[in-house]
C-alpha cells in the first residue's frame, strides 16, 4: 500500500513536515486550514490547498476530508493526517497592564525592528514575570538583550529563569559578560507606571533588599504561545483531545510524542505545544516512522474491536460521548470505526442497552470464566475472590509478582480487560452473584489511563456499587478499588492480600 498523508497547516512546521515526507517518497496532500477560504483555484499551483475542513469520514485505513471553498467544495483522501499548524505569539500586554506604543513594544517587534531600541537608551526586557516563560522565548529575550547590551543600558527583569535548553545557560553568562543586568523576582514583582518623563519601573532587588526605580526608555514585553485559531476547529472535526491551553494531544503521556487519541492522526511541533525547531524535526521523524509502518502494511494488531448490535441500539449516543478515540461515527445510527477503535471497552460497559460488545471480553465469557474458576476451586478452604484489572498495569504486575514468587491469595480469579473502563457493573455484580466473597477492581493511576478516563469510570462505578452493596445488605468493604502502575508488583500483591485479610476479618466477626 502506498499511503497518502494529509499535512494540515499553514507555516514552516507544515512545510518542513511535507518536505520530509515527500523526500521519503510518500504522497502528500497539503491543506492549509482557513476559516475564510479563497476560491478553489487560488493556491493550486503551490500545491497547498487553502480550505475550511468541515467534516471527515473515516473508513478502513482511509480518511475522507470534506473541504469547503468560497464557492465550491471538494473531498480529499488520505491514509493518515498530520496536524502541523503554527502557534500564535501573544505579547503579555494585559498581564503587565501595558499598552503597545513608541516606548513599549513586543518581543516580536523588537526582534523585527532592532532600530526601535536606539543606542544610548535604557532598555528593559520583561521575561516570565506573568507566568512561566517558554525556553524559546527565554532564548529570544536573552539574545536580544545581549545584542543591545553594548550600546544600551540593558536590563532583564525575570521571574524563574529556566535554562533547560540547548546552550541556554551559556547564553545567560554571555548576556552578563555583554553587560546585561538581570534582576530576578521570586517573592515580589516590579510595578510599572507611566509618568510625564516616561515609563518607570519600581521594584525591590530581592538579593540586596533595597528598592530601586528605573526610568525605562524602552520596555520589551515577552510573549507566550497560543494555539493557532484553526486548531480548535480541527480538534472538533477529528474529535481530538486538547490540553488546558488548547494544543492538541491532551495531557496524556501515552500519546507522546506525536500520537493523538485518534489512530493515524498525528500532531507535530507547535500544534502540540512544542516550539523548538530541533524538537519539531524529531516529531517529523516519528511521523516518518509511522508512515513507513503504514507502508509495510503492518498495522499493530488491533485485535477484536467493539461492535454495536443494531437491534439493541436505541441511539442514545452514550458511546459517542464516552469513546476516547473518536471511534464512533454517527450515520443513521452510531457505528464503530474499526480502524479507530482501540478496544478499551468503555462503550461496552457504559451502553445502557447493552448493545455493544467487545467479543473477547463479553459479559458471558467473563462471567463463565468466573463460574468455571469457582467450580474448579470449590474444594479450597480459602475465600473465593475475584480481581478485575487493566491489561496495561494489573496484568503486568501479576506476571511480575508471580515471577518474583510473591504470595497471592490462594483462591483469587484474575480477569484482565483491555482497560479498567471495561469493568462494568455487571462484571462485579456477576462475580458476587457467583458467590465471590470479595471483589478487587484494579485500574491505572489517575492521570495515567491510556484511554483517558477509563480508570475514572471504573472508580465511579465501584463507588456506586458500594452503595448498592450497602443497600442489599452486603458489607461494601467486600469491594476494594485500587490503582496501580505497571511496575508495582509489590503493591499489586499487597492489594490482593489486603482483600483476603478483609474478607477473613469479615467472616470472623
Amino acid at each position, binding site marked *: 500500500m502506498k499511503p497518502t498523508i494529509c499535512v494540515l497547516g499553514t507555516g514552516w512546521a507544515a512545510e518542513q513536515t511535507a518536505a520530509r515526507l515527500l523526500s521519503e517518497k510518500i504522497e502528500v496532500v497539503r491543506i492549509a486550514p482557513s476559516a475564510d477560504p479563497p476560491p478553489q483555484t487560488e493556491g493550486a499551483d503551490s500545491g497547498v490547498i487553502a480550505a475550511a475542513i468541515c467534516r471527515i469520514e473515516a473508513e478502513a485505513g482511509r480518511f475522507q476530508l470534506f473541504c469547503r471553498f468560497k464557492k465550491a467544495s471538494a473531498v480529499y483522501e488520505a491514509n493518515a493526517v498530520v496536524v502541523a499548524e503554527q502557534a500564535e505569539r501573544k505579547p503579555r500586554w494585559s498581564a503587565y497592564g501595558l499598552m503597545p506604543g513608541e516606548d513599549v513594544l513586543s518581543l516580536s517587534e523588537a526582534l523585527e525592528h532592532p532600530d526601535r531600541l536606539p543606542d544610548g537608551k535604557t532598555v528593559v526586557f520583561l521575561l516570565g514575570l506573568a507566568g512561566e516563560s517558554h525556553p524559546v522565548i527565554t532564548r529570544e529575550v536573552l539574545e536580544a538583550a545581549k545584542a543591545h547590551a553594548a550600546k544600551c543600558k540593558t*536590563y532583564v527583569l525575570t521571574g524563574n529563569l529556566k535554562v533547560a535548553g540547548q546552550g541556554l545557560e551559556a547564553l545567560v553568562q554571555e548576556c*552578563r559578560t555583554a553587560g546585561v543586568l538581570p534582576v530576578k523576582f521570586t517573592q515580589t514583582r516590579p510595578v510599572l507606571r507611566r*509618568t*510625564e*518623563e516616561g515609563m518607570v519601573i519600581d521594584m525591590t*532587588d530581592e*538579593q540586596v533588599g533595597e*528598592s530601586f526605580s528605573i*526610568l525605562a526608555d524602552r520596555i520589551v514585553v515577552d510573549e507566550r504561545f497560543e494555539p493557532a485559531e484553526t486548531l480548535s476547529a480541527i480538534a472538533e472535526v477529528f474529535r481530538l483531545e486538547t490540553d488546558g491551553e488548547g494544543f492538541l494531544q491532551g495531557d496524556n503521556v501515552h500519546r507522546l510524542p506525536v500520537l493523538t487519541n485518534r489512530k493515524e492522526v498525528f500532531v507535530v511541533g507547535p500544534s502540540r505545544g512544542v516550539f523548538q525547531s530541533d524538537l519539531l524535526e524529531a516529531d517529523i521523524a516519528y511521523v516518518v516512522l509511522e508512515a513507513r509502518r503504514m507502508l509495510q502494511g503492518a498495522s499493530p494488531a488491533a485485535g477484536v474491536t467493539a461492535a454495536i448490535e443494531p437491534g439493541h441500539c436505541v441511539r442514545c449516543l452514550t458511546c459517542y460521548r464516552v469513546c476516547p478515540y473518536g471511534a464512533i461515527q454517527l450515520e443513521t445510527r452510531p457505528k464503530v470505526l474499526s480502524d479507530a477503535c482501540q478496544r478499551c471497552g468503555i462503550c461496552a460497559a457504559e451502553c445502557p442497552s447493552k448493545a455493544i460488545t467487545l467479543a473477547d471480553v463479553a459479559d458471558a465469557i467473563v462471567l463463565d470464566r468466573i463460574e468455571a474458576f469457582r467450580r474448579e476451586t470449590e474444594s479450597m478452604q480459602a475465600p473465593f475472590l475475584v480481581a478485575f484489572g487493566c491489561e496495561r498495569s494489573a496484568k503486568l504486575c501479576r506476571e511480575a509478582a508471580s515471577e518474583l514468587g510473591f504470595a497471592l491469595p490462594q483462591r483469587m480469579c484474575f480477569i484482565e480487560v483491555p482497560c479498567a473502563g471495561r469493568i462494568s457493573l455487571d462484571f462485579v455484580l456477576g462475580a458476587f452473584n457467583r458467590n465471590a466473597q470479595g471483589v478487587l477492581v484494579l485500574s491505572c493511576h489517575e492521570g495515567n489511563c491510556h484511554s483517558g478516563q477509563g480508570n475514572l469510570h471504573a472508580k465511579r462505578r465501584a463507588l456506586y456499587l458500594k452503595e448498592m452493596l450497602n443497600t442489599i445488605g452486603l458489607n461494601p468493604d467486600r469491594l476494594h478499588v485500587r490503582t496501580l502502575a505497571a511496575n508495582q508488583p509489590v503493591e499489586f500483591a499487597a492489594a490482593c492480600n489486603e482483600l483476603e485479610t478483609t474478607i477473613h476479618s469479615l467472616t470472623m466477626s
Partner: protein
Amino acid sequence: MSETEQTGHRRLDRLDHTRLRNWPFGQDYCLTCAMCSGSCPVAGIDGFDPRKVVRMAGLGLLEELVDARWPWICTMCGKCEAVCPMDIHIPDLIRSIRGKRERDLVPGILHKGLAAALKTGNNLGMPREDFIYVLEDVAAEIAEEPGFEDFKVPIDKTGANLLTTIHNKLVNTHTEDLKHWWKIFHAAKEDWTVSSINWEGTNWGFFTGDDEGMRTMVGRIVEQMERLEVKNLMWPE
C-alpha cells in the same frame, strides 16, 4: 524632585553597573543559588551575606560596599568559593573591597601595624638593637638547658640554608614560643639564620586589601634572602 523619584527609590539606571565589572572575580555570573550564604560561618552577623556582597558588586554599589562593615566581618576562610557552582572568587572580591577603603578607616590595628612595618620594618616599630637583644637573651636561656650548652642564635649569617621570618609577637609577648623552633633547628643541625632587619613575618596588607603594602613587605623578605645568600625560606605565618 521629579515624578520618577517620588517613591524614594534609588534610580537603578543611574548607577554605573560597569565600574566593578573589570574586577576579575566573576561576580556577574552569580546564579543566586545562595550556596555561599549557606556555607559562610559568619553569615548573619550584622546582616552579612556573601551573596548580597556579590550582588551589590554586580549592581555597582561600590561606596556602599566600601563603607559597610561586612567585608571586615568575613574571615577569609574561602568556604563560599569552594562551594560556588559558578566559581566566583568571593574572598578575592572581599579583599578588593577592603582595599578600596580609606586607610585611616581600616578597622582595629591592622593598618597601623602595616604602616609601622612599612616605616620601620616590623609592626611594632622595634629598633634593631632591641630585636637583637631579645633574640640573644632567648638564646642564652636555651643555652642553660642540658644538651643545648653551645646554642647560639645565628643572626645575619651569610650562606645559611634556611632563613626564618619572625612574627612580631614572638619578640614581644610570646618569646617562649621562639624556643621550640630554635631547639628543633639545633637538634636537626639545621644551618639557619634570622635577619636583623625587615624580619617581620606578618603581612597585614593581606588582610586590609593593601596590595602595594603587601608587595613591599614580601619584597623585603626576598631582599634579605638575597643579601644573606640564603636558598630557602621558612615563613611560618
